[in-house]
């Protein structure tokens, strides 16, 4: 029993409670709050790095995996991997927010506080080993992000995005909950570790109920990860929400949905793989195709990136169809690289709106002169999203697709569809490059502009991560495979 392993979450919760108080009484708070939030995230990331052994310090007497609260939470390699990822994404978002959220905007305390609480919720999902904790983590993160999506209270689009996100989120939560209640009735337990044995004792009359419960869970979680045919909300919400929050939703919240899917299906229900794998296969193929085809004609950068994010969710969903340790490792690796790519790309869009350049694709024209470094980073992100070697997106797609081919059978066709989709996606990613580098800038000559430093840092860091992971993927693949081994031994 070592509760010190929850130190990263405790710090985040403590600072999240402190921030509104400082917002009420503090002076010069618009300067302090982002520092406080990023400081808390930095310290909790430091602890996570010590727990995982990235920083070789033996100051805590901690064994991994640790089981807490009677098996409600289990901190294993899988949980630590995703927690590090969620923490990093939120850190980038907080850094970018310090400029994106104007100094004189209201409710800044709530903004940073809710961001930290949502991060804790996502971390709880990664640790959850029981449907109760899993659902509570999911709700903590979702409820905070409904409010964050509507943060710009004077912006009509922001309010509409919050409304759509709330209705879809609450609907999917109740569908998930209904599925969980049926599983509880079938098994008499909510402990994911006991699902396999409890379900193998079912008599044949209960098969229908088991199928229904599984369908409810698949549908509910698919809403959360915006997989087709449950994806319609994502582009609207991503476009309407403040861009930093869009970053958080695309790079963090969506990954939380996958963490929940992996926990329930690849850990709890793995013994019934033959029954649900085909459903995920069909959904994965649909999701990537619809996402890529819809992205082709988008003129708004945020909307285009939202559809691209749907397509990427389709690639990650392949792992649930393949359902092997290697595939899960590939999916976790793709989650890691995709988080960096989407964080970078969306923060660039946020920076363009701060620099008053605009967020349509044709607004990028002349960016190579206005801000060469931004143009370069955007180009790297686009190429990596399309999966061009030697960038990170190629490495993770390679592992993911090869796992499907490894498994053989109908999964080879899934891999073929995924490769064709990658080729389609190159079209709209290349359009961004064309606008930035190839097309002439027109009559009014663009002038060199000054980038806000607080946004440039996360962009450059994300770009560096994409290049480093692409050139030297071995340690990251190993970490992802270690994490996968914790779930599928």
């Amino acid at each position: 029993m070592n509760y010190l392993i929850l130190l990263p979450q405790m710090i985040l919760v403590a600072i999240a409670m402190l921030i509104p108080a400082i917002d009420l009484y503090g002076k010069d708070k618009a300067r302090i709050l982002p520092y406080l939030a990023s400081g808390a995230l930095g310290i909790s990331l430091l602890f996570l790095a010590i727990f995982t052994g990235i920083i070789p310090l033996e100051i805590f007497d901690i064994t991994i995996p640790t089981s807490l609260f009677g098996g409600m939470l289990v901190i294993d390699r899988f949980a630590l991997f995703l927690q590090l990822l969620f923490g990093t994404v939120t850190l980038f978002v907080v850094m970018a927010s310090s400029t994106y959220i104007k100094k004189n905007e209201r409710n800044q305390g709530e903004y940073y506080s809710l961001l930290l609480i949502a991060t804790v919720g996502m971390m709880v999902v990664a640790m959850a080993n029981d449907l109760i904790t899993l659902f509570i983590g999911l709700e903590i993160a979702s409820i905070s992000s409904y409010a964050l999506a509507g943060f710009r209270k004077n912006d009509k689009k922001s309010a509409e995005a919050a409304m759509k996100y709330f209705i879809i989120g609450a609907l999917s939560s109740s569908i998930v909950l209904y599925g969980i209640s049926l599983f509880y009735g079938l098994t008499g337990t909510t402990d994911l570790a006991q699902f396999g044995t409890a379900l193998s004792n079912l008599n044949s009359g209960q098969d229908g109920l088991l199928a229904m419960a599984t369908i409810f869970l698949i549908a509910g979680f698919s809403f959360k990860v915006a997989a087709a045919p449950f994806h319609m909300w994502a582009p609207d919400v991503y476009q309407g929400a403040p861009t930093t929050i869009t970053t958080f939703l695309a790079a963090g919240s969506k990954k939380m949905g996958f963490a929940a899917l992996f926990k329930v299906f690849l850990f709890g229900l793995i013994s019934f793989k033959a029954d649900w794998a085909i459903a995920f296969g069909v959904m994965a193929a649909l999701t990537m195709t619809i996402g890529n085809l819809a992205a082709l004609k988008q003129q708004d950068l945020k909307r285009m990136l939202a559809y691209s994010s749907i397509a990427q969710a389709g690639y990650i969903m392949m792992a649930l169809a393949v359902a092997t340790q290697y595939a899960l490792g590939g999916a976790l690796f793709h989650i890691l690289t995709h988080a960096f790519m989407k964080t970078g790309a969306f923060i660039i869009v946020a920076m363009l709106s701060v620099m008053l350049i605009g967020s349509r694709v044709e607004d990028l024209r002349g960016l190579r002169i206005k801000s060469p470094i931004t143009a370069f980073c955007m180009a790297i992100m686009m190429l990596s999203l399309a999966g061009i070697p030697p960038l990170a997106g190629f490495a993770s797609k390679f592992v993911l697709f090869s796992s499907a081919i490894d498994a053989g059978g109908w999964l080879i066709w899934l891999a073929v569809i995924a490769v064709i989709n990658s080729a389609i996606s190159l079209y709209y990613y290349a359009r961004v490059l064309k606008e930035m580098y190839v097309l002439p800038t027109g009559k009014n000559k663009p002038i060199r502009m000054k980038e806000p430093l607080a946004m440039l840092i996360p962009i450059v860091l994300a770009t560096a991560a994409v290049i480093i992971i692409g050139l030297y993927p071995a340690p990251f693949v190993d970490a992802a495979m270690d994490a996968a081994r914790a779930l599928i031994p």
Partner: protein
Amino acid sequence: MIPLNYYLVLSAMLFCIGIYGVLTKKNAIYVLMSIEIMLNSVNINFVAFSAYSGDVTGQVFALFSIALAAAEVAIGLAIFLLLYKRYGTVELNNIKLLRW
């Protein structure tokens, strides 16, 4: 004693009424109420299963889900209030700035 099936049928019916409401109603408050009905039908399931198996986990889950539903309603009403201030209506048909 009433058989377990009766409770399950009741909760399934409530859940379907909730889904029907979410899909057909155009007023945001109606939608919120329908979602509440869905969440409460789940609680019936949990408590019924728990009472018939003698295991308390279901009742604990029902308590958690009531608390979460309350939090969800609070944030939902706040969002709809904001919507009313910006658009002057909570009829979902009239709120369509974001389209493809």
